[in-house]
């Protein structure tokens, strides 16, 4: 039996890149940090707050997200939205994710059990 630590590391590695993809998809509809965290968790992308908040800033610096401050409510919130170049990158990422899935499927089907 594989130890829990080994399993956890591999799962983490597998999940790491998907947080970016999921965030870019989710932020086609503008949202702020905590609400995005809730949405992602609700859709089966559990992500740590201390990972997501810095990630959003990094994606913004890379120009994949744009942001706007909303000061109408009781506390000022920064709303992020997937930018045009973010959308382009997202398409590539989704295509690649699909390609990985396809390759894996053919590999599984082709391999003798």
């Amino acid at each position, binding site marked *: 039996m594989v130890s829990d630590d080994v399993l956890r590391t591999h799962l983490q590695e597998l999940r790491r890149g998907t947080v970016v993809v999921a965030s870019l998809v989710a932020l086609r509809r503008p949202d702020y940090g905590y609400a995005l965290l809730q949405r992602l968790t609700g859709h089966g992308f559990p992500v740590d707050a201390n990972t997501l*908040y*810095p990630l959003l800033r990094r994606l913004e610096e890379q120009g994949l997200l744009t942001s706007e401050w909303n000061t109408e409510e009781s506390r000022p919130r*920064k709303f992020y939205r997937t930018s045009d170049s973010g959308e382009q990158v997202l398409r590539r990422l989704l295509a690649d994710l699909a390609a990985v899935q396809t390759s894996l499927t053919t590999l599984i089907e082709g391999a003798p059990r």
Partner: protein
Amino acid sequence: MTSLTDRYLDATLRSVPTGRREEIATELRASIGDMVDGRIADGIDAATAERDVLTELGNPAQLAARYTDRRLQLIGPEYYLAWQRLLIVLLSTIPAIVGVLMGLLEATVADNAAGAIGEGIVAAFTVAVQIAFWVTLVFAVLERLGTPLNLPEWSVDQLPEHPTERGVTLTDVCASIVFLCLFIAFLPWQHFQSVVGPDGERLPILDPALWTFWLPLLLVVLLASVALEIAKYRARRWTWSLVGGNAVLNLAFAVPAIWLLLDDRLLNPEFVDRFAWLRDGGLDTVARISVVAIVVIILWDIAESVVKARRSAR
């Protein structure tokens, strides 16, 4: 009283560049507020909720590093191998050389033979610590600046020629040569510089009569041993001719040394007279221990060379 959140924000923003501090502060404060509200809505009291949220966000220094994309490592994988290699090369040579030089200076110029070994060890240690510190510091700064090292790309041509384990390492060869040089330096030093007696009179330790033939012979043998070490390093492994040469040199040193020791001709008689315990039978003990030590060392050295030659010949 400042709240826990204020203190947390303060601790996080301390290591974030000032230009972005305010924006991150406002956003992070709102996010923390949202998370706390979320927990309060789940029926947790406000104080516990705040504590839980800050605990979940974790160490402020770590969070700040994520915001600024700073790596939490002294020397990363890009620089590690270059750092390690440089450190090994420097540490395996310079401290030993400096230690020997300082020891010789202490023994000759400062006329303090007894303190020479200690002086040499202290100097070698100090130099080693300094090298390790400064090399590491430079690499840590490079890591932070992201300076490219522009080292040549690795290529297959760099692979060692013999896939077998290299029987001769640079460290071993350097250590042997340093030891041999120390020994070579000792022979003239003991003649001119050693100090015996309270009146500071200089007395050679070895019999000066031996300079007519035996001591020059030993010097030649020692110099030939240095040459053999260099040849061994260039050959990268023990060959059978090196094993033969090594055995001949070992015997050329050991046989005269043992013969002179057993014949009581090695030490200067005047030197022996100065020490009561040497006069009163101590000389025999010294000779016997020295002979045994020489025989053991020689046999060990020859056996080791044979074993390594056989291993690398496979």
